[in-house]
């Protein structure tokens, strides 16, 4: 798993907080990690509640209307996977991000099969967690399944695979198209390198090199080069974001 550099929380906040406030439930038995997460989420403008064990977490998840649940895999009283199973059985579809010290491929698959929507191995950076939680929350909102994505004067037609910036038609390689599609689907949200590797390439390992950066810079040269307003931004210490203008 690629761990980005130190997150610059203030910057991340300014980009995302104004968009939408999320209600989060953190189910984590380690007091210190939980406090850190609650505090960090509140600092970026989200509402975060905390449950210290599986039973309490299940009860709170059922009663409260949360946008995203962040669930530790190993919990006292009821483990994370069984909690997710119980929630899904009762028809609760709130997106769940599983946090786990078990970072191996099979564990991730097991977690996703149990009904989790995303899986993040410990130790993680907060920027990575925040980016993933925001994408999960947006996914629930549902507008991302449009056939036409538009950011500023950049347009991507998912059906005809046509990409245009203003009046200029852009020619993208298939993978560049998918990369741009993913970025635009989550326009205005930070997308980490790991998320790109997982979702665009479907790889879950940790490249020791900056492969993703190279792909991004190629894409950037196609969509931003020669235009006055850059759309594809690098968010230092976190990842990338496509957005019309930056405050």
């Amino acid at each position, binding site marked *: *798993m690629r*761990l980005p*550099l*130190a997150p610059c929380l203030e910057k991340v906040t300014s980009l995302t907080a104004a968009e939408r406030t999320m209600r989060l439930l953190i189910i984590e038995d380690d007091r210190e990690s939980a406090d850190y997460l609650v505090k960090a989420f509140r600092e970026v403008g989200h509402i975060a509640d905390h449950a210290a064990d599986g039973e309490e977490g299940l009860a709170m998840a059922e009663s409260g209307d949360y946008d995203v649940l962040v669930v530790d895999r190993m919990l006292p009283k009821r483990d994370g996977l069984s909690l997710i199973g119980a929630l899904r059985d009762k028809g609760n579809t709130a997106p769940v991000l599983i946090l786990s010290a078990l*970072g*191996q*491929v*099979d564990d991730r*698959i097991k977690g996703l099969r149990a009904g989790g929507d995303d899986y993040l*191995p410990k*130790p993680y*950076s907060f920027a990575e967690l925040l980016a993933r939680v925001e994408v999960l929350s947006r996914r629930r909102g549902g507008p991302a399944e449009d056939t036409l994505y538009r950011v500023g004067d950049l347009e991507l037609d998912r059906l005809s695979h046509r990409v245009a910036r203003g009046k200029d038609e852009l020619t993208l390689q298939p*993978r560049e198209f998918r990369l741009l599609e993913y970025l635009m689907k989550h326009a205005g949200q930070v997308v980490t390198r790991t998320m790109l590797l997982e979702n665009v*390439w479907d*790889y*879950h*390992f*940790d*490249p*020791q*090199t*900056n*492969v993703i950066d*190279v*792909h991004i810079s*190629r894409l950037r040269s196609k969509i931003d080069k020669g235009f006055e307003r850059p759309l594809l931004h690098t968010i230092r210490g976190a990842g990338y974001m496509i957005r019309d203008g930056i405050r």
Partner: protein
Amino acid sequence: MTAFGKLVRTTAFRLTLVYLFLFAMFAASLLAYFAWNTRRLITEEITQTVNAETSEINELYGRRGLRALVLAIESRALRPGANLYLVTTPTGQAIAGNVGSLAPGVMATRGWSETAYRRIEDADDRDHRALVRVTELENGFRLLIGRDLAERRRLFGIVAKAAQWSILIVVVLGLGGGVFVARRVLRRIDAMSGTAHRIMTGDLSERLPVGRSGDELDRLAENLNAMLERIEALMAGLKEVTDNIAHDLKTPLTRLRNRAEEALAKSGCEADYRAALERTIEESDGLIRTFNALLMIARAESGQARGNMDDFDAAEVAGGIHELYEPLAEDDGMTLKVKCEPTPVHANRELISQALANLVENAIKYGKPVAQTGGTVVSMDSGQILIEARREGDQVLLSVTDRGPGIPEADRKHVVERFVRLEASRTQPGSGLGLSLAAAVATLHGGELRLGDAHPGLVATLVLPARVGAGDRVAPPIPDVPQKVA
């Protein structure tokens, strides 16, 4: 447990007991059959003799009357070892013969019967037994002719005695044999348990004694020895990993700590602190990566990832990795090419992808062509990296060939070990685990990682078993790629 108790509890001894029982039963039934048949034969013979004599006497009586009968009986009765004869009047009075007394009622029933009797001349009081036939003559006279059964009894006695002895001999020999076999087995088992015990107490280098007979115990010992071999290798591997972890994780940890201390000691501005913290996070990320790689290797080596295998074409993986790394190679002034043919495998796709990615990353990092004297570059395809998926017989070869300096033959075995980095590569970032992981992944799939010379350059090949039954077409080897591998 006493020595005897141990002996009695052995499988060999128990089996002996079962066989012993079976053989005793067999001998007993054989003898019983023999005895019964002998008895039948003797009885038959007696019956025939008595019948013949009865009809003879009857005929004499019919021809010459009672007087001749009495005379004939008397003369026959006096012969030594003679049969039994008795003639009685209709009132039951004996008038001729050699029978002194009979069991009551014998003369009253006609036909065959077995009875106790005494001869007239017998001095002792012992009863004898005889098989007799009583016939009625004219005028109510009765004739008894019979034969003593002592012979039959004696024969039966002999058989019974033979049975006793033979069963006794069977039991004694059987038990003796059982003890002998059990003790032999027990001695070998004891030797094996003794060794096993010593191994358990810590001496993993010891091996079980293996005999030359190649019997089941030898085979067991051989298999156990093979198992010990594997355990010892695993233990050695574990120890090596632990040592390496201790060394290679402690170094960056120390660096981390030193930096934090240094930052604390110096009273700097916020920017300094920030820089120090960023470096700290960078360093710890590196540590986590190393740790993850180690865990992954350990998993692959222990075979835990076997559960997640499916059928796919390794060429797809090669294509995917090519697609991912092609821009990176180009940025580094190299070209990444891919050459594929259908290569069906049954494998863990994630691990194969990662192993191949590691090989490609290595090629990009270390495969830059070396300048020859005068600065001219070696050949036309310098800076080219080739990913290739091909099938050779029942093997699938996933290879990455670069045109860099390669790895000297002496070092090839070495670089696959964990954390080993050649001097030339120390300046590059990396954990020294890439090849170890690739090798572990290949081993997990029952294959291997081969490192060879590409003249110039390195060819690293993941050799995997091809999926069985997936097309029998065997592609010819591609001629323009060096085939020489380590």
